[in-house]
């Protein structure tokens, strides 16, 4: 039986900027940073309290990928629109984290709001992805 998810992918427009954002601003930890001979960089990060969840930060626009030009262009369009997907991150306190991250230059779509499932603010990673930052009820 399947028990857990160990790896997920965040597609980003720029891998190095993603490293700066997820590690430098959000406080994630680098799990693995390996570069293959062809230039493909396998960079995974983990949220502070989930060291066994590896998030692969993948830039499909960069060299070392096996995508054809049509696929790269599709990624470029979807990431540019922020339409590739979304996710949710938990926080111990939405308003505190909102204030702190905003002071570090993180972009939010409005102030924290109370929702049915908790207090939520929506943040943008600047690299094509939107996330709900949620403080569970």
């Amino acid at each position, binding site marked *: 039986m399947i028990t857990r998810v160990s790896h997920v992918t965040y597609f980003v427009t720029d891998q190095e900027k993603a490293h700066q954002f997820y590690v430098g601003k959000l406080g994630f930890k680098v799990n693995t940073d390996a570069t293959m001979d062809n230039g493909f960089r*396998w960079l995974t990060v983990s949220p502070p309290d989930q060291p066994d969840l590896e998030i692969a930060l993948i830039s499909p626009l960069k060299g070392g990928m096996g995508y054809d030009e049509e696929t790269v262009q599709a990624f470029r369009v979807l990431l540019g629109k922020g339409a590739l997907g979304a996710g949710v991150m938990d926080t111990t306190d939405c308003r*505190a984290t909102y204030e702190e991250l905003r002071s570090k230059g993180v972009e939010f779509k409005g102030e924290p709001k109370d929702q049915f499932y908790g207090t939520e603010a929506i943040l943008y990673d600047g690299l094509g992805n939107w996330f709900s930052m949620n403080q569970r009820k």
Partner: protein
Amino acid sequence: MPIAPDIYRRIITAKLYIDGNFREPIDLDRLAREACISRFHFHRLFTRIYRVTPHQYLTRKRIEAAQLGLAGKAMTVTEICNEVGFESVGSFSSLFKKASGHAPTDYRLLARERSRQVTEQPRSFIPHCFIETLVEGGSPKGFATRAAFGHTKSNSQEAVSGPKP
């Protein structure tokens, strides 16, 4: 009761103070002064917001810095212990082991061995599905690429049931 925006800012100021100065001696008085709140209220509010006490948070930051130092710096365990803000090697080693599951010297050996393997055999750290889809550029060979959209286009004749063993 909700926390006022001004109080939030004060607690965050103290938290950022820990982030920037954890290598120095820091006590509750210092943090409460940073936040301009009494020690009692500061401790209560910090713990409510971050779900760890200020001291626990400070220890966590120091341990994280020690992990990076042990993995990457040519310093002794004692030097790293002092460099990240601990005063006693004994308590550092004990807290480090509790947090990471390994004694500092063991952690260093494991981290360096892993680092060596990552450099020498990067491919062995990448799950194979990622190699197939990212590096080799598409769905694993033999699978229908657009089945989810109702198309019938496939990479091979076995596409419907997947590749033969």
